[in-house]
């Protein structure tokens, strides 16, 4: 099967080139430009004569040039790897080492200049796009792209401190966007909020359903959302119909009493993904937007953004204290297995295992981790999520936490062991273990790092130690993984098996 994702987006440019695709705080770009820029980049990449087996890294922020670059790379027959420009250099270098990319497109200036692969620099790209009207080189990706070819690769954190690249194929993405069209009505031109960075797969939920159907992305970049004054100045200028965000982000918007149906009458759909939606947040959203359809969705990056959903109605709010994550999308069996990979009974907890057309082909260049997480159930390929679930008497899936030490903080997936790894690489640290501190509604409030310093005589030096450790972590670790609190101790308690006892510290931190 060949894909038609790109040709479908391009068809809007062919029929209506002036149609606006991207609205960056009032600065608009059209479908015509999207096609023209991506065609020009695809032609440029094809001239490099690269192996199509190898992906291409895209480094940049939340701009129109990023979107045009993604499409250009896919048109040239490659998969793209989005790396956000706020990432530390080490993450960028790790991703390059693991992915073995054929090239890199630097939409923002790269923080390195000695890469041994072809790099299309920010200046070159700018020049290419500016002069793209003169390039006539029709690119027809459907001729040689197969449905099983990788469309994008998104890197998540890994337990050993090395990230894992989740490969999502054209067919995976098509299955996801079909679901968005059928079950959420995103099958016509809609104005959609585009807020998460493109390296976070929640962005796929706003980008592709919108662009496939001729809609417009209203962009709120990180620089704007970091300052409430700018955020609340920007929101009323937008006419968002389709709101896609993490619950954390809308909680920020709810701070403003003006964030409601009266001042945002265009909002029709509110889709949540990326972290647990609490009852309190959902109830507040329903109260502010009584006419909007509010959906809770669930799914890991490995199964293409989301695979289950439920509309949060007042009835659901009345019936559930902890909100359900809903029903699987069509053709996507979601089963619950016990430790022996046997199905559990209804009403019992089991690990959520996902099958069907959304399941990734695995982690790029990492057969070991792929074989651990991707298994066969009844002869079908399946992904073990590491999440615990339970089917209730209505057939609704309930989320019951993690089977391992992974947490979500502000929508970001964090492996606690990865933070530990980073900490133990710091010179002053002998041993370290990270635990989550929970706030209301089972939500992680911050990470607390317990540290045994190399210098046993650390009393009175805690502040200097904290500053030095933070400075070293900042160089190598994503900022959202930074512990909010550092506790220095003489020793970390051990489990009977001699491992650092994370559970004991968790109960200490959370006062249980």
């Amino acid at each position, binding site marked *: 099967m060949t894909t038609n994702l790109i040709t479908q987006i391009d068809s809007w440019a062919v029929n209506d080139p002036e149609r606006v695709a991207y609205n960056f705080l009032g600065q608009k770009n059209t479908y015509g430009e999207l096609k023209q820029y991506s065609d020009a980049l695809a032609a440029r990449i094809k001239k490099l004569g690269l192996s199509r087996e190898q992906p291409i890294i895209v480094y940049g922020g939340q701009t129109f040039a990023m979107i045009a670059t993604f499409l250009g790379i896919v048109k040239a027959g490659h998969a793209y790897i989005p790396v956000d420009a706020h990432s530390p250099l080490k993450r960028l270098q790790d991703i390059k080492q693991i992915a073995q990319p054929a090239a890199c497109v630097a939409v923002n200036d790269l923080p390195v200049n000695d890469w041994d692969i072809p790099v299309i620099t920010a200046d070159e790209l700018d020049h290419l796009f500016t002069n793209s009207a003169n390039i006539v080189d029709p690119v027809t990706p459907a001729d040689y792209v197969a449905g099983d070819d990788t469309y994008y690769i998104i890197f998540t954190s890994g337990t050993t401190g090395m990230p894992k690249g989740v490969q999502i194929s054209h067919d995976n993405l098509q299955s996801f966007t079909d679901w968005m069209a059928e079950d959420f009505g995103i099958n016509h031109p809609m104005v959609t909020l585009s807020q998460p960075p493109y390296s976070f797969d929640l962005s796929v939920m706003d980008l592709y359903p919108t662009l496939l159907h001729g809609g417009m992305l209203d962009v709120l970049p990180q620089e704007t959302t970091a300052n409430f*004054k700018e955020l609340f100045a920007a929101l009323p200028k937008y006419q968002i119909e389709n709101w896609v965000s993490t619950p954390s982000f809308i*909680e920020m918007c709810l701070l*403003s009493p003006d964030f409601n149906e009266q001042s945002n009458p265009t909002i029709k759909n509110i889709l949540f993904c990326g972290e647990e939606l609490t009852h309190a947040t959902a109830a507040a959203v329903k109260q502010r937007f009584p006419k909007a359809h509010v959906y809770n969705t669930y799914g890991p990056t490995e199964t293409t953004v989301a695979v289950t959903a439920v509309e949060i109605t007042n009835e659901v709010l009345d019936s559930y204290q902890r909100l359900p994550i809903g029903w699987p999308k069509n053709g996507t069996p979601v089963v619950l297995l016990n430790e022996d990979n046997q199905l559990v009974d209804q009403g019992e907890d089991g690990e959520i295992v996902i099958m069907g057309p959304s399941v990734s082909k695995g982690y790029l260049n990492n057969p070991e981790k792929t074989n651990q997480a991707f298994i066969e159930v009844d002869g079908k390929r399946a992904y073990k999520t590491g999440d615990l679930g339970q089917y209730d008497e209505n057939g609704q899936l309930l989320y019951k936490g993690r089977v391992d030490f992974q947490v979500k903080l502000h929508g970001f997936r964090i492996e606690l062991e990865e933070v530990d790894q980073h900490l133990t690489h710091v010179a002053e640290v002998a041993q370290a273990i990270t635990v989550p*501190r929970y706030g209301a509604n089972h939500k992680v409030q911050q990470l*607390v790092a317990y540290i045994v310093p190399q210098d046993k005589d650390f009393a009175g030096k805690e*502040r200097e130690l904290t500053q030095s450790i*933070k400075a070293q972590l900042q160089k190598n670790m994503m*900022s959202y993984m*930074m512990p909010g609190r550092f506790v220095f101790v003489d020793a970390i308690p051990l489990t009977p098996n001699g491992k650092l006892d994370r559970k004991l510290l968790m109960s200490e931190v959370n006062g249980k």
Partner: protein
Amino acid sequence: MKDTVLDILADLTGSDEVKTNLDTELFNSGLLDSMATVQLLLELQTQLGVDVPVSEFERSEWDTPNKIIAKVEELG
């Protein structure tokens, strides 16, 4: 009031530094992020009855414990 603000900040940041150095830069140091700021504003409302007009919330005016105390005094 001052102690309440500092207690809220200490709880949110998980650090006593906010109590010992009232000129600590909360955002630049990574002690507070946008999401923690949401919690801060909610706590100020619940515990002190201070309503912060968020549409006027300029980060630079709230970036140390001292500045936050001054703002709360002004709004209270």
